């Protein structure tokens, strides 16, 4: 299945002076695991995600998915962008089926799947809307439906809910957990929000900045399915405190 293996990974930008964005990153992500990369802005967490996506190449070190080296982006690793990055000239339906279409998948194959994913994401009534006619939260749901329709085994999410208001954000987190429970993709979720990381993930990697490196790995023991009440429990706050201490180091 979809095992991500990263070992001794460095990323240096050849600017003057050179900027070391990532240094000595080792990471193993099992198939179906929900991982959060947590850290302040500038800690290289988005860079790490871009490297897993195949948008950027590492300067040093290895990165494999299922034993295969990553050389370029591919539909098996679906990316959900910070600002959704939908094509504004295509309506919701055309955005969602863009992937299967360019890959030459038969309509009879992708159509029922796209319908199903739009239904799960609560977008069935908006198939013919243009992205600009949707709210930020709905655009992000289209962004998720788009990668689910491609059948990506790995979801790479770059602060996907960062620009949303607090309420929308919570409902998106719940929706994401529901979908994950149902389809069990591997998720790498980048965030700077401790609550979000703890509520969603099985494993939280705390990153530190300049150079970006992984500072701590925490197993999140909370039972699934998780309810919103979890975020106010004593155990949750205890873990939050622990992470805060880690981050202050």
């Amino acid at each position, binding site marked *: 299945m979809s095992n991500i293996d990263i070992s001794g990974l460095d990323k240096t930008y050849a600017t003057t002076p050179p900027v070391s964005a990532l240094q000595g990153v080792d990471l193993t992500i099992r198939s179906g695991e929900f991982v959060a990369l947590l850290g302040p802005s500038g800690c290289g967490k988005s860079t790490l995600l871009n490297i897993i*996506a*195949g*948008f950027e190449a590492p300067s040093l070190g290895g990165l494999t998915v299922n034993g295969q080296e990553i050389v*370029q*982006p*591919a*539909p098996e*690793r*679906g*990316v959900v*962008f910070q*600002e959704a*990055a*939908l*094509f*504004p*000239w295509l309506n919701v339906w055309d955005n969602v089926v*863009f*992937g299967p279409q*360019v*890959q030459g998948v038969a309509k009879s194959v992708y159509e029922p799947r796209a319908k199903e994913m739009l239904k799960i994401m609560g977008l069935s009534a908006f198939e013919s809307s*243009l*992205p*600009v*006619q949707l709210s930020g939260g709905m655009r992000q749901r289209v962004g998720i439906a*788009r*990668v689910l329709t*491609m059948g990506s085994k790995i979801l790479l999410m770059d602060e996907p809910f960062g620009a949303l208001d607090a309420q929308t954000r919570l409902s998106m987190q719940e929706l994401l957990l529901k979908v994950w429970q149902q389809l069990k993709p591997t998720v790498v979720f980048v965030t700077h929000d401790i609550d979000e990381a703890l509520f969603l993930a099985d494993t939280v990697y705390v990153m530190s900045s300049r150079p970006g490196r992984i500072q701590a790995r925490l197993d999140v023991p909370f039972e699934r399915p998780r309810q919103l009440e979890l975020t106010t429990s004593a155990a949750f706050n205890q873990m939050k405190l622990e992470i805060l201490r880690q981050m202050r180091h």
Partner: protein
Amino acid sequence: MAQSRLQKGLLALILPVAVLCLWQYAGSQPDMAGIVPTPLAVAVGWQSWIWGHAGMGLNPYLGTWLANVSYSASRVAEGFVCATLMGVPLGLMIGWSRLAAQLIDPMIQGLRPIPITAWLPFSIALFGIRDVGSIFLIFLGGFYAIVVNTTQGARDVDKNWVRAALMMGVNSRQLLWRVVLPSAMPNIFTGLRVGLGISWTAVIVSEMVAVKSGLGYVLWDAYYVGRMDIVLADMVSIGLMGFISDSFIVLIETRVLRWRLLQNH
């Protein structure tokens, strides 16, 4: 306070009506005779240019308006379509591929400062007093505007749209036609509108010199024989044709760029 359409319409009419009145008054002065015909005289001349019967052929401006308008319009259409068919793909390639940019862009940037009017003698020498020479200039005028704007549009493609497309498995041809082209569309339409305006300039200039028909030819010929009413009617006709063809592009633009128009509201 919200203005009604009527109020806006009336406001817009004040200046033109004032100019017309002043013009009528100035044209009626004896020492202006033969230089500035009155608006009424222009209307009468124009009317016979459109509807008049050719008769014995002594007056070349009887009933030839439509024919000359269509000569010019079809030259613009031919030159402009060629400019679009070449300018858009070339602009996309220059904006998108570094190799194409290094290969083609210097040539275009090097030739662009030569005004299209400077090409006139060379174009006549090359093509003779024929349609092709005129169409060539129209093409050239439209082409620069279209290629430069398309290049800009292709360069400004949002990085995340490209990444999203690559993540979804596009090949380079699909990337160009399904992502770069639509996202460059707003710039392309800017180029088309500017290019069309230049094409109308080019058709008038080239018809004055390089061919013996069309609005540009009539404009110069009428001036030569002192028919200033036809000169002015011709000028208004050119403006009208420019306006109509531009409106046509805007009509297509509002359909193609609906996503963009909604965005700006």
